[in-house]
């Protein structure tokens, strides 16, 4: 027996209203990417492709995009390793302070970005500067990885909770070494969780601005920093809209693909 049809109908309407709420501003962004008026007068007086041409030639946007991608890849990689390690430790072992770990891991993302930013900035200045490691892409990646760990941690931990240890025990019983068991038994089962965590971590790092502002250097501009600097500029604001429009369109495919590849499980991925 299904849920009563009036309930279903109400839910359907509310859900679509919610989705409309989510997408109206994005549609406006898309519209303004073509808006002839650089001050986004509404309704638009005309449509034009000149902003797209300007964006294509914008060196600032392109280099910022490249920097963001590199930072996100670096942060995701570190988060994958550290998050998985921590998830294994918490899920497969019992030790003192175990329940505090989940609190600790979520702290970088729960604390306001400005607090994390100032703290990391001061720390980098006192610890890394004397070692000769200046501010730059490295410090940005370190900052991002810190709050991306939780995304991988949560997903892997949730999956490990559902995976009983019996497959791994069987593998060990059959003579596989620990590493082989991990590589051939555990990892394939974890794959979709790792994928979901990596996707979220990449997205978060890609869009992060506050911590990045405090951990970056003048010549390392990630995309959000570039956008922030150009948001209100009369001649650049439309270009920013173009960049955003491209990002939205470009993101749909990987997200959909990721969900297809990972199957039903990843649809319940954890933030």
């Amino acid at each position, binding site marked *: 027996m299904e*849920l*009563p049809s*009036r309930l279903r109908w109400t*839910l359907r309407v509310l*859900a679509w209203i*919610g989705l409309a*709420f*989510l997408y109206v*501003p*994005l549609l406006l*962004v898309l519209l303004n990417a073509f808006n002839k008026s650089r001050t986004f007068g*509404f*309704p638009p007086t005309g449509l034009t492709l000149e902003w797209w041409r300007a964006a294509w030639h914008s060196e600032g946007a392109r280099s910022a995009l490249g920097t963001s991608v590199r930072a996100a890849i670096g942060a995701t990689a570190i988060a994958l390793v*550290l998050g998985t390690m*921590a998830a294994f*430790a918490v899920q497969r072992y019992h030790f003192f302070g175990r*329940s505090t770990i*989940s*609190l*600790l891991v*979520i*702290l*970088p*993302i*729960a*604390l*306001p970005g*400005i*607090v*994390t930013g*100032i*703290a990391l900035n*001061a*720390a980098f200045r*006192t610890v890394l500067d004397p070692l000769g490691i200046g501010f730059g892409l490295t410090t940005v990646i*370190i900052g991002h990885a*810190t709050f991306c760990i*939780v995304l991988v941690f*949560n997903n892997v931990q949730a999956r490990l909770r559902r995976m009983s240890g019996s497959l791994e025990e069987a593998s060990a019983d*059959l003579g*596989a*070494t*620990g*590493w082989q068991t991990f590589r*051939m038994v555990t990892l394939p089962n974890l794959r979709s969780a790792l994928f979901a965590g990596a996707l979220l971590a990449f*997205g978060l790092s890609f869009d992060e601005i*506050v911590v990045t502002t405090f951990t970056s250097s003048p010549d390392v501009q990630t995309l*959000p920093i570039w*956008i922030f600097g150009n*948001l209100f500029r009369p001649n650049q604001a439309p270009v*920013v809209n173009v960049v*955003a429009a491209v*990002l939205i369109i*470009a*993101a749909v495919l990987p*997200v*959909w693909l990721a969900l297809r590849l990972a199957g039903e499980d990843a*649809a319940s991925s*954890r*933030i």
Partner: protein
Amino acid sequence: MGYQVAADQGVALDAPVGRAASDPRGKISAFLAPKRKTRLALLLGAPMLWLVVAYLGSLGVLFASAFWTTDSFTGAVVHSYSLDNLREVYTQPLYRTVAVRTISVALLVTVLDALIAFPMAFYMSKVARPGIRQLLVVAVLTPLWASYLVKAYAWRSLLAPHGPLSWVAGGYTPGYGLAATVITLTYLWLPYMVIPIYAGFERVPRSLLEASADLGASPYRTIRSVILPMVFPAIAAGSIFTFSLTLGDYIAVGIVGGKTQMLANVIYGQLVTANNQPLAAALATIPLIAIVLYLLLMRRTGALENV
């Protein structure tokens, strides 16, 4: 033979199980196998080094600097212990007003997001056809990829004096202020609330809903007594994000908030405008305490397992 058994279990192997005794990888695995604590230490070592020493350490130094002061002319930090900053932060009416305003906005945004996300997640999980379900999840995740700044700016355009909203609503627009801030923040964090609640709904078996209906409960009774208790930890999990992200926001406020000041604006102002890092650190204790309290509260509801 072991190869055969493993294959029966569905574990695909491309090489016989077991390694030559001289293989170094095999030796390390063999060495570590019985030493549970060493394995634990190795697993926990790197992440803990990162989080506890590096991150907590830098936080510790930051909050330690709340006890320092600054030279009044140059603004350079002076390492002399003093409680002045903390006293100022917790007694000045300005900071109290701003803190109360910020926490209220954070709670309001959380409630609004929960109200919008709940029916969406319910629909996506229990009503939508399986084929549509994946598309809906993609649809909810995609806005996360549009830049946060651009989305905030889109709301600035939407609420502009002669913008789309005033065009549709006959000239009315709330303008830039507290209302606009609440709307924009609710919008920005909505996906962070939908996803955990959706995951929570996935764990509610349909059979339970059917049983409840069979026992004569109205839909709203079912929601109240069956669904809500089961999904509540997930709602709590989502609320952690909406609450903490709102508490720390100063950029979206600057874009749509008009002359509104939130806590993070004040912290940023003390840090950059006043070059007064100790006072900024003292101010930062407010969101720190708020968030730690909130996390501890949510932990009791089981939210941290649902995040």
